[in-house]
């Protein structure tokens, strides 16, 4: 059997064995004790030729219902947005995707410059001084921010609002266990962080306060009020933010956030069942040397020409080893590139326009649902998500919606037992008036 990825021929093999001075490849493995050698063939399925492979992978893909076939109102941290065709074409330039981390700057200027541009765009959107080259995703970025705050303040307690994405809080708790930190959750009241509860739980001896803006329930948190409480004592103020919302909304940097994290998935990264997406991590200048992950900086060569390098590497695991405060190595560089290309295609005006369209269409959907007799749970300013109350469980309703080729919203009772029959509905610029009206009329008819 020959394989198209393996160029070895019998002649090559003979010549190479002769140079090495062996009679069979087997001799190269002679130092592996017999008792641990694997005998026979691995019990995995036999190889497929390209035609059969395409058939099998298509079979698996077509067993799924994708959001291009049905109309989706799912969000809850992952969103279906407009992706310009040009993005994929640029990402398929294989000099980008088949490269390793740019450790040899002379032949990696393209990647390094693209990341430098990405860092700049993230700073612009978040209103922060410094952004790194990416994290795995929003939730792990949030957990790393919490770990960084503990390292910076030498304090052991993290306050996190219950209006932060439930999976972010779960990832945070797993990480906190590793570092023996305590995570205390702050209650939600009327769809936003309960400021009284926050004030009570903030005893001044806190590593950081973490909120989400807009929050998991879609609502806009009062960052000005939260900042005042968060900054009592030495603790950091960490805000997780959907970067698209910052196309229209006041950036957290303007409210005194020390760290802003989130996921740039809304900028050109397909949903892919939840990954790979791309976390961002932005901080104030003061925290520059505490940032986890890779940073690209501008410098010059001996002729004074501008160039880019990975910099401040003394922070990272490959230098600090057991003194490192984060172990991140691989990140999501290619997705950071995809997001940069998308932000470039959308541009200054497009990012704003897209953000405004989300606000407009989501508000239109809210009114359409209300007009069809569906109860709106929170009447507060929001970005592109809001909560409705249904006459029965979200699971049952979503089953009925499938019959109308609609993927209904997120079931909030999964994470909030008291939120029985509450659905989180997301509406992006992709939903048309017709689709929204249809959704509203079907939901209005469900008893």
């Amino acid at each position, binding site marked *: 059997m020959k*394989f198209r*990825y393996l*160029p*070895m021929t019998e002649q090559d093999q003979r010549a190479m064995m002769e140079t090495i*001075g062996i009679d069979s490849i087997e001799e190269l*493995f002679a130092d592996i004790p017999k008792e641990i050698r*694997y005998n026979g063939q*691995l019990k*995995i399925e036999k*190889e497929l030729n390209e035609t059969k*492979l*395409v058939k099998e992978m298509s079979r698996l893909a077509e067993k*799924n*219902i994708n959001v291009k076939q049905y109309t989706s109102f799912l969000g809850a941290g992952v969103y279906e947005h407009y992706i*310009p065709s*040009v993005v994929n074409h*640029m990402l398929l330039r294989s*000099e*980008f*995707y*088949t*490269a390793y981390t*740019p450790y*040899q*700057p*002379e032949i990696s200027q*393209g990647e390094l*410059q693209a990341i430098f*541009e990405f860092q700049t765009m993230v700073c612009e959107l978040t209103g922060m001084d410094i*952004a790194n080259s990416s994290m795995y995703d929003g939730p*792990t970025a949030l957990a790393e921010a919490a770990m960084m705050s503990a390292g910076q303040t030498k304090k052991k307690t993290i306050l996190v609002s219950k209006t932060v994405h439930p999976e972010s809080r779960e*990832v945070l708790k797993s*990480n906190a266990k*590793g570092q*023996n930190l305590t995570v205390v959750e702050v209650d939600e009241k009327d769809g936003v962080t309960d400021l009284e509860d926050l004030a009570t739980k903030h005893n001044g001896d806190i590593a950081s306060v973490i909120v989400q803006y807009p929050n998991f329930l879609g609502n*806009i948190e009062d960052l*000005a009020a939260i900042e005042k409480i968060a900054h009592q004592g030495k603790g950091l103020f960490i805000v997780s933010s959907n970067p698209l919302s910052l*196309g229209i909304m006041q950036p957290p940097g303007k409210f005194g956030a020390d760290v802003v994290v989130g996921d740039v998935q809304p900028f050109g990264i397909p*949903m892919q*069942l*939840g*990954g790979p997406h791309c976390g961002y991590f932005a901080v104030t200048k003061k925290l520059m040397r505490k940032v986890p992950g890779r940073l690209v*900086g*501008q410098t*010059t060569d001996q002729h004074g*020409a501008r160039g880019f*390098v990975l910099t*401040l590497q003394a922070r990272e695991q490959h230098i600090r080893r*057991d003194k490192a405060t*984060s*172990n*991140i*190595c691989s990140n*999501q560089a*290619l*997705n950071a590139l995809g997001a940069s290309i998308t932000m470039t295609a*959308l541009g*200054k005006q497009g990012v704003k326009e897209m953000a405004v369209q989300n606000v407009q*269409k989501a*508000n239109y959907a809210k009114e359409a649902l209300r007009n069809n007799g569906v109860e709106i749970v929170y009447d507060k300013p929001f970005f592109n998500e809001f909560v409705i109350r249904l006459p029965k469980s979200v699971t049952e309703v979503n089953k009925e919606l499938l019959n109308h080729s609609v993927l209904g919203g997120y079931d909030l009772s999964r994470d909030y037992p008291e939120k029985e029959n509450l659905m989180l509905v997301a509406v992006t610029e992709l939903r048309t008036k017709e689709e929204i009206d249809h959704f509203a009329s079907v939901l209005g008819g469900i008893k």
Partner: protein
Amino acid sequence: MKSQDQSLIFEVSQEGRIGHSLPELDIPEVDINELIPEEYQREKEAELPEVSELQLVRHYTALSRRNHGVDSGFYPLGSCTMKYNPKINEDVARYPGFAHLHPYQSEETIQGALELMYKLQESLGEITGMDQVTLQPAAGAHGEWTGLMLIRAYHEANGDYQRTKVIVPDSAHGTNPASATVAGFDSVTVRSNEKGLVDLDHLREVVGDDTAALMLTNPNTLGLFEEQIVEMAKIVHKAGGKLYYDGANSNAILGITRPGDMGFDVVHLNLHKTFTTPHGGGGPGSGPVGVKKDLIPYLPKPLVAKDGDWYYFDYDIPESIGRVKPYYGNFGINVRAYTYIRTMGPEGLKKVSEYAVLNANYMFRRLEPYFDAPYTKHCKHEFVLSGRRQKKLGVRTLDIAKRLLDFGYHPPTIYFPLNVEECLMIEPTETESKETLDEFVDAMIQIAKEAEENPEIVQEAPHHTVIDRLDETTAARKPILRYTKEINGVI
């Protein structure tokens, strides 16, 4: 002067240009101030670029030409397994039935995705000899941390809170001790002996009832198989510790030996190394973790399970360490890896390792006369050389690496592992032809000769890249981490 200027996208920008075509707003527009209170609205737009679609294409095409990938040329970067990234994997990952799935769709709408994940879990379990696999970790280091948290949960469930030490060889990847620290352990270093293998006597000294685990890469970062692995496993297990397998070097062992059979309890794989998913200029990767039976109860939630023909998420893992990643891991990467496994099958995967090892040994023997070889036994998929002979001539390993750029190659890994002076670590992979290996070896031989006869040409390299060696000291002392008009001049 050969440096060619390349504008930043912000410097190409002109007010009023666009590169998109957003849907129109087909609903009645409401005054934005009625929807978002003014104090929550941005005062001014984010300064993002304004370019046409062609300007965008020219910019990113220009950037791509200033970048070297596996498709551009040979990339023998040790411990990174820079093999060919099959094009069909990219196609498959972009099928709408994989690319456009929302993580919160109901199970009945994603049966194909669940089937794929289940089969990948099973395949990776068989390849590594492990009883169960989680696909959640996003990358190798993330897998390491996950695996160590599993080990920690296991010990704590047994009341062994005193097991706070993770033993790591001096040749280990930097992520190993860093992951140990982040998982709340202290690392202890175990020495290598003169053969480049773990010193068993020292291992016996450092294990004890405070040992949580030994982390090991096998073959190790010198490309050598730890032939005493069975004895090492006995020593660690007898002391009550667990064995962690860093799968970065799995490309040497597919179908030949399995971590599970060597005695390891936990393993992570780098799908972006061994299983051909692209490195992407630094990521995204995927770092699935496999475990033996006694660690299954602690795996992250959810796993993918099967009941007859029905695939589902299993959240019923009461002792789970929790979630390590939102949703289900880097699914899009896992699709590529599964496509590759189905392309190769058991026969193909075994050939991968055989040829990877043959290629490495061939290069090793051809280069041995020209560079110092600290370890001479047959290597596995990679090998190390020392540039100390050249250093005496005033040519450092860094210079050799830079000179290789002139020949169109990405240099090997340099100055790692830390226990080899002026180290060069070379990993050819199985996807390279003999001709490519020969051409690279010839270039290395030429550089060795230049070091003797004309060292300046090596010391001053590279000569043919778009930019010269960059001033990294100033970059770190006076960091410029973003574009501003003030620094880069008003356009």
